[in-house]
């Protein structure tokens, strides 16, 4: 398992992302419930944030100078727990307590239960507003910390996302960085079929955001975009990361059955073999 240390190189991050995916599969198998698809699609982004881009101290989760991270699509929190354990927020064994009684690892993120979780989410659409509040507060204090928010592409069907998008551009919070995990699926089916969210890039541009359009599984592009998003441009940045739901496990990729279905024993073993 990768240890938190100096910023990882792109090849190291690729290896780390694979390990985080393995952790997700093990956790969900153990929990017997959860959402593999959206965790796997966001794995490369989360790996790059926790193991390279974000300024944070796992030994001191409330460090004043830390960057903030919000998983707004809260059902993808297993990938965050994996990254937190991997960087040393808590022992890796604790990952297997996910969704169990008395665990700090709630089914969706709970800020009051687990130090290092910055916002309680899981009711879609709320994370960007909370991130905007953080960005405003940090700016008032003269802090150079950034706020990173991962949004789902189904999630942006929620009106509150656009309330926050409009306000962030209005308040010119250049320290707010959204990453759209554009895996093209939501619970009931593809976003094209259920509720067309296109044209995604044009929508964010129209709301006054700087948009970086990337392949969310190219670690090189992910790292480059996250670093570029830190530039001070006078407006918030959104990285539209084209991803594959279930990425890394062939039988989960683009099979929306695995939006909210945990792997059984056989599936877990096949998945871990593919991710080895």
């Amino acid at each position, binding site marked *: 398992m990768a240890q938190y240390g100096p910023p990882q190189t792109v090849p190291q991050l690729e290896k780390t992302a694979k390990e985080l995916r393995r952790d997700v599969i093990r956790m969900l198998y153990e929990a017997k419930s959860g959402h593999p698809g959206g965790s796997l699609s966001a794995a490369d982004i989360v790996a790059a944030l926790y193991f390279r881009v974000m300024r944070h101290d796992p030994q001191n989760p409330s460090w004043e100078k830390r960057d903030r991270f919000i998983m707004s699509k809260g059902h993808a929190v297993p990938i965050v727990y994996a990254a937190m354990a991997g960087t040393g927020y808590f022992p890796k064994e604790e990952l297997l307590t996910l969704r169990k009684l008395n665990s700090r690892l709630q089914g969706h993120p709970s800020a009051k239960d687990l130090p290092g979780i910055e916002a309680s989410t899981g*009711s879609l659409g709320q994370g960007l507003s909370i991130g905007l*509040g953080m960005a405003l507060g940090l700016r008032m*204090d003269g802090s150079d910390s950034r706020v990173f928010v991962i949004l789902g592409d189904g999630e942006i069907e929620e009106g509150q996302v656009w*309330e*926050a998008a409009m306000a962030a551009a209005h308040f010119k919070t250049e320290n707010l960085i959204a990453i759209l995990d554009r895996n093209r699926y939501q619970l009931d089916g593809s976003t094209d079929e259920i509720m067309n969210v296109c044209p995604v890039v044009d929508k964010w541009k129209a709301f006054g955001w700087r948009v970086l359009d990337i392949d969310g599984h190219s670690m090189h592009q992910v790292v480059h975009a996250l670093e570029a998003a830190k530039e001070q441009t006078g407006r918030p940045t959104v990285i539209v990361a084209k991803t594959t739901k279930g990425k890394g496990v062939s039988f989960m990729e683009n099979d929306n059955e695995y939006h909210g279905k945990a792997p059984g024993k056989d599936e877990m073993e096949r998945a871990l073999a593919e991710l080895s």
Partner: protein
Amino acid sequence: MARPLGMATRQAYGKALVEVGKLYPNVVVLDADLSKSTMTKDFAKAYPDRFFNVGIAEANLVGVASGLATTGKIPFASSFACFLMCKGFDQLRLGVAYAENNVKIVVSHGGISIGEDGVSQMSVEDVALACELPKMVVMVPSDEHCTYQAIRAAVEHKGPVFVRTGRAKAPLVYDAPPAGFAIGKAITVREGKDVTVIANGMLVGPALDAAESLAEQGVSVRVLDMHTVKPLDEEAVLKAAKETKGIVVAEEHLVHGGLGSAVAQVTARLHPARIEFVAIQDTYAESATGEELMAKYGLSEPDVIAAVRRILA
């Protein structure tokens, strides 16, 4: 005899906020395009760098407030009671209550005394909604002086607080900010031994008027200003249940889920008592003057008197 009117409690909020802003540099204020009505405009003028108008977007209002709280600010978020509590409730659940963020929600235009604008602008369910948020302190101050103390207490309390203010001028209950004001501690504004009226907000004035009228008829009525609905002053309720023949609860709110329900839970558990409820029944109101509505929907002095009489009958 009706009591003299003071300023509206929303106006008192606006003034208190400016003072609180001076004392606490971490206080920031958010509004959703109603700052001229909620009276946060006073703060916006005094501290423009600490005021955020998020536009007509109440869900975002609450979300941004909870984010600000995580950075050590003490956000006061305001809008009309109906808009903030109904459109921002999911955000209050997760971002404020579940995360236990130090956010202060101060709403204006509570109740039906707002008058002519009618039902869409009235809030008759906000206190019940606020009470359903774990650890949320819920206050409904009665007049300008009580509001001042409620706002001072809100900023000093660490954790989420809800305060309801009103649009209309509020009958004066106090001559000055009540000394010893504390969250969860009722103020006995009139002693009495036959019946206790437990009231808050715009009903404390009429309750005192009713007590005066009844005194002339030889009935002694205790009046409690129950400015905090949660946590409720159980001791004061228990004392009323034990020492007087019954309790009248009077509030500008639907009868289900507000102060009346909270009081009844305490008496049911600790000392069953006869209770009458002066509140809005299972209905919405309509457009008219505030006074006409308070009379039609059963929230005025004669309604309190009738309720006391029913207990004594």
